[in-house]
């Protein structure tokens, strides 16, 4: 009559094992019968019902079986709540009676939680913050990559991709530029985006006031119009509802046609430097005229491009598709790079989620730092857990008595948890306070290359994170003793008491494992910090190729009126800029204290370096892809004297060279040695490849001098072959739209920082309408160039020191405790003739074993994990043996030192007293 087979019965029995033993012995058989009757009735209703029976029974039995294993806790009922409340009151009372234990645990946790929360708030604000765009996850940066340079988008590529791509719904072009604005007290620069018709729809934004761009706004010769951000509308236009239809700035012929909604801002990575122009957050959008098909090539990468992925398409899909389209584009729009050239030079499209693109420079640094502070937190939690383990030993007899008197497992659990919950909550709260302070400090020292730091702060997400950490540490520290406690019978616990025997091997084992882990983590952090400190020292001792001391610099925005002063041709504008800068240099040299002044388009270590394909008189490849590449820098006369670089052969550009366009250039030593090894470079000829590769026309320059290598791009990398061209050849671009920035450089007798206001004043007196910004010194630029390393170094070093301190405290505490426990044993040993030195050695050996195991584990772990630091290292091998050995020895020394005091105490035990005390 019983329909269910033995298989079902066994399966149900297995499921019922989810319930605790006591529960099963009481109800197990009954439950099995009920389930089988249920199953039988399901069988009468068809196989679907049987399947449903198994699904719900499995789920219900397992879930409720596990729930039944938890201590019974009925919120809302008077009796248990008061019991839990009572347990917490007891916990607070017990903790106040042990202020040292409580304070140590709380402060340790607060340090760990505070550090982790502070860094998490930075990561949360910078890396995890949603972008202010609709469907931001579908927005992608679209560009190209050749070797390591991330390039923009040629108009030919844009037209072809827009037309052909199926993975991209929309594609937009833009150029980021800047325009001087007449500010309240001094002229300012204004970040401006020249936007193709599709940019705003790609970003998914429409104006909240006025209208967006119409197609005719993008026609050449259209009335100049502009959209402004809500921020600009409030700060510069007085939040005037009638601002639409008025000029962007007083006197401008650019009319505001609309205001973008509040909360929208155009995000981009820092720092962005194009042709020496460094931009503020863009607040103004103007129409960009995209070249038509006849005027488009696949060759000029001056445009930036954003796209919106089609639904279901990924960035990888788009990258694959564009790789095919790119070769077609080069054929459809000839005159630029050829399809063959693209294939041979490993040229490829890049499609990157905008979120990744924005933080690509800083994300690895931040994640590494967050990892480092997590290690500190782990050490802190381990320390607190250890404290609780020791504390649990002291409470063994209390808890044994409780259990003997009939306390349930749940109430014993709460007896343990209540203390750790109180400690963790207090530690968490203190940690949040520490984090709020630390975040402020972090922000003030953080490198400016980290984007949108303004969004960083202790907010709800961060609070939840901190409380989560506190919760995890509460459970971890509170339950660890429970696992030990569970395994001991009442009799052992009570029996131990009063005899002062050594604690069981097992309890020692748990604590020792924690200590080894702590030492290992501290060793890892120390190795990381030592690697970075070495890197930092190496960077500081690098010779950048110039003398950074006492050189003041500032950036000038040259407006259209200056560029067009000499006439409305591009060549005239190129000359006008240099002439203007020569006048500025003359003004600067009038300032007392200035030794020599010059100018350039870029400064070393200040943003991206541009490259050209070049030919020399001896080597003129017919195909551009065969031509060697060189970094290209535009400079003024006496530039090397002003920045303190050494011209080793020939001469540098003189002011007389700038009277007209001299076809002269300088090269660096690396360039000279690569192209004319062992020979003189002066008098040789060098050409830049332009859009056409036939090398006709004015492309040749004569080398007039060789300058010692200057690290233009990064202190970390040796100088590339570099050519230094007179600024008169720096293209002004389409000068009706482009605004040009130039850098003035002044070598002063002493204290360049103090000279900055006087230098600015000199420029402003000469031309009040020229915005001056980014006044700084070369020394500052140098130190700023390794700001990320410095930031990471200081943070990891602090983390390592805290970790080592916590580790030492942990070992000191643990060894002291063991010595206290073994007082009687040591007394017996000494009574039997052991010397104090022997007892000391015994204790030290224990500490030493933990230290050695931890150091070895830490070293091995770092051998694997250390590689993630590699990208930040300079001049030091991430697996350098001497360094690892040094740290291991150092960690051992600290461990032995912290065991020394308790060891010394053990050696002074008076055998008589120790034995009598029992």
């Amino acid at each position, binding site marked *: 009559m019983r329909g269910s087979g033995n298989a079902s019965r066994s399966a149900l029995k297995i499921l019922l094992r989810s319930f605790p033993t006591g529960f099963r012995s009481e109800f197990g058989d009954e439950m099995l019968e009920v389930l089988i009757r249920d199953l039988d009735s399901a069988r009468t209703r068809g196989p679907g019902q049987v399947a449903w029976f198994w699904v719900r029974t499995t789920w219900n039995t397992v879930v*409720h079986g596990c729930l039944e294993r938890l201590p019974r806790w009925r919120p809302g009922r008077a009796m248990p709540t008061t019991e839990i409340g009572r347990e917490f009151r007891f916990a607070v009372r017990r903790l106040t009676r042990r202020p040292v234990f409580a304070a140590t645990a709380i402060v340790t946790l607060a340090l760990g939680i505070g550090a982790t929360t502070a860094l998490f708030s930075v990561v949360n604000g910078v890396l995890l913050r949603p972008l202010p765009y609709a469907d931001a996850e579908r927005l992608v940066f679209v560009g190209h990559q050749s070797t390591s340079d991330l390039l923009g988008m040629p108009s030919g590529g844009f037209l072809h991709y827009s037309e052909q791509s199926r993975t991209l719904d929309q594609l937009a072009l833009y150029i980021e530029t800047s325009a001087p604005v007449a500010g309240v007290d001094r002229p300012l620069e204004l970040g401006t985006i020249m936007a193709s018709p599709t940019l705003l729809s790609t970003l998914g934004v429409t104006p909240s006031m006025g209208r967006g761009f119409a197609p005719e706004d993008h026609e050449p010769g259209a009335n100049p119009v502009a959209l402004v951000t809500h921020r600009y509308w409030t700060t510069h236009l007085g939040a005037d509802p009638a601002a639409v239809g008025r000029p962007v700035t007083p006197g401008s012929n650019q009319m505001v046609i609309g205001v973008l909604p509040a909360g929208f801002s155009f995000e981009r990575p820092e720092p962005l430097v194009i042709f020496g122009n460094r931009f503020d957050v863009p607040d103004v959008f103007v129409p960009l005229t995209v070249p038509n098909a006849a005027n488009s090539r696949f060759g000029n990468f001056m445009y930036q491009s954003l796209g919106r992925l089609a639904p279901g398409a990924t960035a990888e899909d788009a990258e694959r598709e564009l790789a095919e389209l790119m070769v077609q584009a080069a054929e459809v729009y000839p005159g630029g790079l050829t399809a063959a050239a693209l294939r041979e030079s490993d040229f490829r499209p890049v499609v990157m989620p905008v979120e990744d693109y924005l933080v690509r420079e800083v994300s690895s640094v931040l994640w590494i730092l967050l990892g480092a502070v997590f290690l500190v937190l782990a050490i802190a939690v381990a320390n607190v857990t250890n404290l609780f383990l020791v504390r649990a030993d002291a409470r063994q007899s209390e808890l044994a008595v409780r259990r003997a008197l009939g306390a349930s497992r749940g109430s014993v659990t709460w007896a343990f948890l209540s203390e750790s919950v109180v400690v963790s909550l207090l530690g968490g709260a203190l940690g949040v306070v520490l984090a709020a302070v630390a975040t402020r400090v972090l922000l003030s020292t953080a490198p400016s290359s980290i984007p949108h730091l303004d969004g960083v702060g202790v907010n709800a997400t961060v609070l939840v994170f901190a409380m989560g950490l506190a919760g995890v540490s509460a459970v971890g520290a509170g339950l660890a003793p429970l696992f030990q406690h569970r395994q001991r019978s009442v009799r052992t616990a009570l029996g131990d008491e009063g005899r002062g025997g050594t604690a069981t091997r097992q309890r020692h084992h748990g604590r020792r494992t924690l200590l080894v882990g702590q030492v290992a983590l501290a060793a890892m952090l120390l190795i990381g910090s030592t690697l970075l400190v070495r890197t930092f020292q190496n960077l500081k001792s690098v010779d950048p190729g110039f003398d950074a001391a006492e050189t003041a610099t500032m950036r000038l925005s040259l407006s259209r009126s200056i560029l067009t002063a000499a006439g409305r041709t591009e060549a005239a504008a190129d000359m006008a800029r240099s002439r203007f800068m020569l006048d500025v240099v003359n003004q600067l040299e009038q300032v007392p204290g200035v030794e020599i002044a010059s100018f350039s388009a870029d400064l070393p270590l200040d943003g991206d370096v541009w490259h050209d394909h070049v030919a020399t008189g001896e080597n003129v490849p017919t195909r551009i892809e065969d031509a060697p590449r060189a970094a290209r820098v535009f400079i003024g006369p006496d530039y090397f004297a002003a920045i303190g670089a050494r011209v080793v052969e020939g001469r540098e550009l003189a002011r007389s060279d700038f009277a007209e366009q001299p076809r002269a250039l300088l090269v660096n030593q690396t360039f000279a040695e690569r192209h004319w090894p062992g020979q003189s470079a002066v008098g040789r000829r060098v050409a830049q490849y332009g859009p056409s590769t036939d090398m006709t026309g004015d492309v040749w320059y004569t080398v007039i001098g060789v300058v010692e290598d200057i690290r233009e791009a990064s202190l970390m990398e040796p100088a590339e072959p570099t050519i230094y061209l007179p600024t008169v050849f720096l293209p002004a671009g389409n000068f009706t739209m482009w605004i040009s920035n130039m850098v003035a450089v002044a070598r002063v007798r002493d204290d360049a920082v103090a000279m900055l206001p006087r230098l600015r004043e000199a420029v402003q007196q000469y031309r009040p309408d020229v915005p001056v910004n980014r006044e700084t010194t070369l020394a500052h630029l140098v130190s700023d160039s390794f700001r990320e390393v410095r930031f990471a170094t200081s943070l990891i070093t602090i983390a390592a020191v805290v970790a080592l301190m916590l580790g030492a405290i942990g070992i000191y505490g643990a060894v002291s405790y063991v010595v206290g426990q073994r007082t009687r044993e040591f007394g017996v040993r000494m009574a039997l003739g052991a010397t104090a030195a022997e007892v000391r050695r015994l204790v030290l050996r224990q500490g030493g074993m933990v230290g050695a195991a931890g150091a070895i584990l830490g070293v091995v772990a770092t051998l694997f994990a250390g590689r993630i630091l590699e990208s930040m290292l300079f001049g030091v091998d991430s697996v350098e043996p001497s360094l690892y050995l040094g740290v291991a020895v150092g960690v051992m020394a600290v461990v032995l030192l912290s065991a020394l005091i308790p060891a010394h105490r053990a050696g002074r035990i008076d055998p008589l007293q120790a034995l009598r005390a029992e």
Partner: protein
Amino acid sequence: MTSNASDPAAGRPEVHLPLKPVVFHILLALAEGALHGYGVIQAVRDHSEGRIHLETGPFYRHLKRLLEDELVQDSDARPADDDPRRGRYYALTPLGRRVLAAEQSRLARLLALSRELMVGMGGG
């Protein structure tokens, strides 16, 4: 957790209120007389017209609590047609009856109050 017997509050029905709907149904089922586990489950399913589908695992957890709280006890009463597979029989304790009555009157007061308010608000 100490047992309820030692708690002076345990004898008062109010501390057990309000009851979960399922628990209310279990007590209702037992109010008719002693029942075995499967019978209670069936009764709850029938009484609630299938709205409460009491699963075996949760039921026995509730039952354990009710036994611990002394609202329910083992019963010696066995019907003549008893099948030994049915296992133990359960019945309400006097406290269980008082708790059930207290919950009933609490719900009745609640219902009366809500009717009164709905009338006052012009609803209905």
